[in-house]
C-alpha cells in the first residue's frame, strides 16, 4: 500500500504535465525550431532541394528595400496606434472618473468596441472609408475638401489602419486607466486642491505620475498588440497595400510565406520577429516592472 502511494507521487506530476508539454512542443517549440532551421536554407523552386546558405536569407532581407520599409511602416504604425489609443483612452477614463451619474452605463458603452472582432472592425472601417460609397470618406470630402482614396494614397491607407487599430484597443486601455484612477488615494488630490492647484495641474503633477505603472504596462501591451495582433484589421481594410504602404512585419511574413511561397525568407522574418518579441519581453521585465513603482 505504502509503495503504491510513493509510486503515484513520483509519476503523477509528469502525467499531469504531459498533455500541456506535448501541445507546447508540437505547436510552439517545434515550429520555432523549424523556422530557425529553415531560415538558414535556400529552397529551390520545386521544393526538392535545399542548400545551407548561412545568413544569406537575413542579409538578403536587410538589403531588401521593401523589407526595410516594412520595418519603418511597423514602427510608425506601432507608435501611432499606441499613442492614439492610449491618449484617447486616458481622456475618456478621466472623464468617466468625473462623471458621477450613469457611470456604469458609460463604462458598458465604452467597452463594447472590445467585443467587436478585429476582422469585423476592419470590415466596418473598410466600408465607412470606401472612397466611392463610404460615409466618412464622403464627409471628409464635403466638409474638409480632402480627396480621400486609400486605394491610391499610401499615407491615407496607413492613417486609416492606424485609426481602425487604435479604435479597437481603446476599450482595453480605458478599463486599465479607469481602474488606476479609481484606486488613487483621494486625500492627495484633495490636499493639492486645498493648496490651490488647478484641475489641470492636479492631473499632471499627481494623477499622471501615479498612473505611470499602468501607463508603462499598457505601453508594452499596446506595442505588442500593434506589432502582432493587427493582421486582421490590415487584411480586411487594405491587404497591406497600396504598394506595401500598410504591410507591417507580421503581414510580410504572411505574404512572403503564403502568397510568395518563399519559405526561407519567411522563416528568416519569423526569426527576426521572435527576437523582437524576446527583446520586448526582456525590456518589460527588466526596466518597467522594477523601476516604475510607487
Amino acid at each position: 500500500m505504502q509503495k503504491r502511494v510513493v509510486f503515484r507521487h513520483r509519476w503523477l506530476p509528469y502525467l499531469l504535465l504531459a498533455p500541456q508539454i506535448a501541445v507546447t512542443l508540437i505547436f510552439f517549440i517545434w515550429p520555432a525550431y523549424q523556422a530557425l532551421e529553415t531560415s538558414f536554407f535556400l529552397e529551390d523552386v520545386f521544393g526538392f532541394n535545399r542548400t545551407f546558405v548561412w545568413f544569406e536569407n537575413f542579409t538578403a532581407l536587410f538589403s531588401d528595400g521593401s523589407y526595410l520599409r516594412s520595418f519603418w511602416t511597423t514602427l510608425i504604425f506601432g507608435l501611432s496606434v499606441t499613442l492614439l489609443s492610449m491618449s484617447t483612452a486616458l481622456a475618456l477614463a478621466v472623464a468617466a472618473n468625473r462623471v458621477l451619474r450613469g457611470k456604469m452605463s458609460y463604462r458598458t458603452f465604452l467597452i463594447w468596441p472590445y467585443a467587436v472582432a478585429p476582422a469585423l472592425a476592419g470590415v466596418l472601417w473598410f466600408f465607412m472609408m470606401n472612397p466611392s460609397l463610404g460615409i466618412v470618406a464622403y464627409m471628409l470630402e464635403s466638409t474638409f475638401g480632402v480627396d480621400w482614396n486609400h486605394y491610391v494614397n499610401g499615407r491615407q491607407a496607413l492613417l486609416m489602419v492606424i485609426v481602425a487599430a487604435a479604435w479597437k484597443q481603446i476599450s482595453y486601455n480605458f478599463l486599465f486607466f479607469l481602474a488606476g484612477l479609481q484606486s488613487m488615494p483621494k486625500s492627495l488630490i484633495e490636499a493639492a486642491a486645498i493648496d490651490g492647484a488647478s484641475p489641470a495641474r492636479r492631473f499632471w503633477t499627481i494623477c499622471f505620475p501615479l498612473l505611470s505603472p499602468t501607463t508603462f504596462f499598457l505601453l508594452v501591451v499596446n506595442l505588442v498588440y500593434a506589432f502582432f495582433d493587427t493582421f486582421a484589421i490590415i487584411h480586411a481594410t487594405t491587404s497591406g497595400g497600396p504598394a506595401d504602404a500598410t504591410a507591417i512585419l507580421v503581414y510580410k511574413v504572411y505574404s512572403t510565406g503564403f502568397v510568395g511561397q518563399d519559405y526561407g525568407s519567411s522563416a528568416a522574418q519569423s526569426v527576426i520577429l521572435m527576437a523582437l518579441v524576446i527583446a520586448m519581453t526582456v525590456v518589460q521585465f527588466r526596466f518597467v516592472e522594477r523601476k516604475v513603482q510607487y
Partner: protein
Amino acid sequence: MIRYIEPAAAVLLALLWISPLVFAFWAAFHDVSDAVNFRLTAPLTLENFRTAWAGAPWLRYFLNTFMLVSLILAGQFLLCTLAGYAFAQTEFRGRDVLFILVLMQLFILPEVLIVENYQVAASLGLLDSIMGIGAPYMASAFGIFLMRQAFKSVPKDLDEAARVEGCGTLGVLWRVYVPAARPTYLAYALVSVASHWNNFLWPLIVTNSPSTRPLTVGLSLFGAPENGVDISVISAATVMVIAPLLIGFLIFQRQFVQAFLTAGVK
C-alpha cells in the same frame, strides 16, 4: 456652468468613439440610400438581415465558432488545471526546466510562426478542421499562471482534511482545488471566449471550406469587394455576428471588467 460642460464633453467624446458601432446599427436597419444620407425619419427595415442571411451559411459559421470556442475552452481548462496543479502543489525533479519550457510559449507568438504552424497542422492531418484551429491554443502559459496562482491560495487545511477523508490526489484536485478556484475559471473563460470568438489569422489559414470556417473568416469573405454587398447588408451581417458577444458583455459586464483587470493579457 463648468459643472455641465465637462460631463457633456465626456459624453460627446464617448459618442464620437462608439459612432462606428452606432452607425453600423443604424445602417443595418435602414435602406442603403436612407442610411448614407442620414434620413432620420426613414422607416426601419429588416430587409438587410434577410439579404445577409441568405448570402452565406451563417448558421454553419455560428455553429463552427461555437464549437471552436467550446473546444478550446474545454481543452484549456483540462490542460491548465492539470499543469497548474502540478506546478502549484507537487514537488518533482525537473520542475523548473519544465516551467521554463512552458514559459517559452510566451515568446513564441502564433502570428509570427504561421507558415511553420501550417506545416505542422498539415503533417498532423489537422488542416480544415475545428480541431486544427483549436489545438495550438489549448496550451496556455497564461492559463497555467492563473491556475497555479489560484491553487496556491487554497488553504492547506482543506487539502489535508480531504486526504484524511480518503481522497486521492486527483480526488483532492477535483473536490477541493477546482471548486475553490471557481472565480478564476470564470475570469479565464470570459477572456478566452472573447479572444477566440474574434480570432482571425490562424482560422483564415487553416480553414478552406464553409464546413469549418468560423464567423470572423466567413464575414470577411462575405464583405470582400468582389461580392458587391452594400454597407447596409454588411452592417446587418456585422450586427448579427457581434450580437452574441455584445449581449454576453452586457450580462457579464462586471465579471468581464474584473477578468480583464486581474487576468490582464490574454
